[in-house]
């Protein structure tokens, strides 16, 4: 079953001479439980694709289906609700709300939904993230890696249909990067969580089950990783 379907998706910036086709008629689909890495040179449209899938940007043309729902047919408010329940987005930078502590940042999608949280599940997630003794800290009191782990936790907490991570290891050393990837892998294996990750790091890409390569706004290669 396809959890994600992208059909003829395009995103253009500017006009005429300055026209930039950040995304140029891209189509592909991803199955539930897949772990997909997107690689490609800088400026090839990776982030653009990811934002469109996450429902935080508007496409120039084309469609995005998540769990069979055409997300750009949704109203603004329903799209917001969709985002908090079905999508876990991890940005390249700036992920956390500075005035909320770690616990609140983690629980944010649930709090917005006025949902009670399963305390046991929360504790095990926190343990897994290694943030047990940091729950009362504010983002400014955390290291870069810790901050990134909080955003991953937040992306995972609602068990969304799909987790999208844009270079979550961008600013981290290789050890910290490994840890982050391990986290994502775990959740992929244990909970059959669908994960899409953008990366420049070949080694990280190789840990995925499938690798999409982008160039000039198009998907130029799509391969299964054999282990």
């Amino acid at each position, binding site marked *: 079953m396809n959890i994600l379907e992208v059909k003829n998706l395009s995103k253009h910036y500017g006009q005429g001479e300055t026209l930039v086709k950040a995304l140029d008629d891209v189509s592909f689909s991803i199955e539930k439980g897949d772990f997909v890495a997107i690689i490609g040179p800088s400026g090839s449209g990776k982030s653009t694709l990811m934002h469109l899938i996450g429902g935080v*940007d508007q496409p120039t043309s084309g469609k995005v289906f998540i769990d069979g729902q055409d997300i750009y047919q949704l109203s603004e408010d329903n799209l917001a609700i969709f985002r908090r329940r079905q999508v876990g987005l991890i940005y390249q930078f700036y992920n*956390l709300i500075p005035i909320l502590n770690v616990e609140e940042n983690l629980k944010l999608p649930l709090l917005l939904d*006025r949902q009670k949280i399963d305390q046991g599940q929360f504790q095990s997630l926190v343990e897994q993230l290694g943030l047990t003794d940091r729950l009362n800290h504010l983002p400014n009191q955390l290291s870069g890696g810790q901050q990134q782990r909080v955003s991953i936790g937040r992306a995972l907490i609602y068990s969304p249909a799909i987790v999208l991570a844009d270079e979550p290891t961008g600013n981290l050393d290789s050890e910290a990067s490994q840890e982050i990837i391990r986290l994502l892998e775990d959740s992929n294996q244990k909970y059959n969580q669908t994960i899409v990750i953008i990366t420049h790091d070949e080694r990280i890409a190789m840990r995925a089950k499938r690798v999409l390569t982008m160039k000039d706004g198009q998907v130029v290669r799509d391969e299964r990783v054999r282990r």
Partner: protein
Amino acid sequence: MNIIRQLSIKSMSRNKTTTFVTIIGIIMSLALMTGLFLFANGLIDFFRQDVAVRDGDLHIHHQLMSAAELETLSHRDMLEKEVRLPYLGAYPNDSEHFVYTVLLGIQPSDMEQSVPLRASRGRLPEAEGEAVISQSVNSFRDEPIEIGQTITLDIYQPSNYYIHETDNQYEPIPGGITLTIVGEAGNRLPYPMNGPTIFVHQTPEQVAEGELFWAGFRLKDVSDASIETFTEDWEMANWGTTSLATYYQGVSSGLSFFVKSFAMVLVVIVAIAGIGLIQNGFLISLSQRMQELSILSSVGMTRRQKWRMAVTEGGLMYLIGLPFGILSGFLAMWIVFQVLTPMMQRLFDTPAFMRLVWDWPTLLQIGVAGLVTVLIATIVPALRTSHTTPLAGVKQQEEITLTPKKLKSPGFIRKLFGMEGDLAWKNLQRNKRKYRGTLVSLIFSLVLYLSLASLMHYSDIANQVAMSQGRDDVIVYFYNTPFDQSVRDKARDIFAVDGVREGYAINTLYGTADNQGGLTAKTQELINPTEVPTDIVTFDEATLNQLLEQWGMTRAEMSGKAVLVNHYRYQAEDRSYQQEKLYQQPPTELTITFWGQNGDWEQTVPIGHVVDQPLEIYDAWYPGASLIMIPEDFEQISANGPENVIIEIRLMTEPARHVQAVEEVSELLSQITFSAAINDQRANQRSMSDLILIAKILFFGFATVIALISLANIYNSLMSSLQFRRQEFAMLRSVGMEEKSFRRMIRFESYFYALKLLIWSIPIGLGTSYLMHWYLTRVVDMAFGIPIRHFVIATVIVISILLLIMNLGSRQARKGNILDELKLHVS
């Protein structure tokens, strides 16, 4: 252009709204300062005109100068005008205080402007040999001088013209003087007429021949210093300044000094509000440029250069604001003066008018006050700028200092208001320091508004209280006369005056009765234990007949008996008015003692009827009894001691014909032989209302501009704070916050902020309101009441404004493209 100025201008144009609002604030502050100075000047000028019309246009007077002294005056170049009134002689009075009546010569031209005489009877002298007497002249004469009379007076040349000397030698002036007295000068001039004086017409030639003079001077430039220089050779006792002189700025002690000081206090208030706004504006534009500043310092910009950059920015805004501020101040005051002049003219009964009076020193003062305001406002931001380290800007300074403790929100907030309320609360906590300045300036302006509103509220009440003592437009009092036929006839004439709509007479004979007991408990507390004030009262026929009908009595039944009004009003300790019954067990007769010039006398009055209600037209205003009797009985009793009688003729007039009616009544009163007074209640009320209206216009105008300045301030800080948080907002939306929730969060933030504001302002406002009440009750009696309406208005306005600004400011963050907002670098 050097790089520093260039950077300043660039940053100003980038933060357009902040810069714009800050400049508007500077303009308003300057306009308000200009307005205050202009008003102070205008007011002083107004009174100066008024005093000049009443008392003359001279600044200095000298009571006795010889022709030679006047010719050799050492500072003649300082003079704008000189007036000489020659002493023509004097005749002795039989009085210790005013030992003689002086004859002073005066030219008709001087009667107009310099020593303005007003004929209260007859006219002013126009030809040679004519003279007017001052009002006190006749009180020192056995044989009064009649107007129109030609009289020859024996006059003398006293050895000394000083009024208070009794050991004078008198040199008779041969032939005396023959004068035609054409009128009486009614106005009391503070000089030179402080004693009985006869002003005699003089030609310029006659004045030139004079030897001794009362001399008055008008200076070109009036100040303490110029007065001192001009009078340096004179003996202290011989000269003085006129009241007009105290209406000049340079002259200390006097109204101008008071007005100026008051204006200065207000200017300081404006400056405080202005500093709050401007400082905040700078801080905002600087915090938005932290990164840039740190980069500048990492490429080697020195502290001094950064400091200069901040000050340059302030200076530029000041220069832009200055002309607009001063011009709008002039314009606003011109309009205010147009409105005020007719009211002030009515109020002070003067032809003087409010006009724009300005000079370069004043403008310079305004400019300096404004510059000082701006400079003070730049100090903190400039300091902060110059201390920016290269690192500080990379991380946002404020975010670094956040701690979980600072952001702790009480649990009930989330329970009650949800996630949105919690976020709103935390945001306020985070921005505490940033908001403090804004908060203080808002509280300040709110308290100012509330205090002024209270002040106006109380003045209104005071006016109403003063007026509620009677619903009548005019009251005429007759004293020391029994209520006889001639008085009744006069009252009838007065009732018949055209324009009098309704009228009644209340005649009271004041006395006391021995306390025979039977009083209510409350009354016993209130009065002297041995006697009860007991007055005998009667009315005119028509009014009495109405009352009889009301009581179901006939005139015959009342004859020889009194109706006891067993009811009174009094003022309680809290100064509110209360009503009370007098006797629990009303007596059947009362023996009343009256005071008399020839010894006290008594009268026993049987009581035929008791009423426990106040009479609509009459009620005692102190604990005591009123005994209503028929006029014949009243006349008979009061004949024993008319000195205890006060007759009040109360009139209600038709508004359109009120003035003529009052004139006609006065005319009627001038023909009577006993003492009478007329009290034009409507005119009193009118001028009181005018005064209150003027105060209202000024105070509310002032409060409004201060409020606007604060508004600009809050606009700036809220906008910048919202701007600053755009990225954060985008993140919240990206995680799935709907617009509804977002709006809720913003709304909560506004409410919390308003709450904080009101929690401070309302108690302080109430406090000042109470203080004001406490202070005012020393002058006027009134109960304490809160101007609730104004408090509600203030609250509603504050909340609406906060909601409006917050909504406007978060619009972009709410509606814009999440990604664009996210990519914004906080800079």
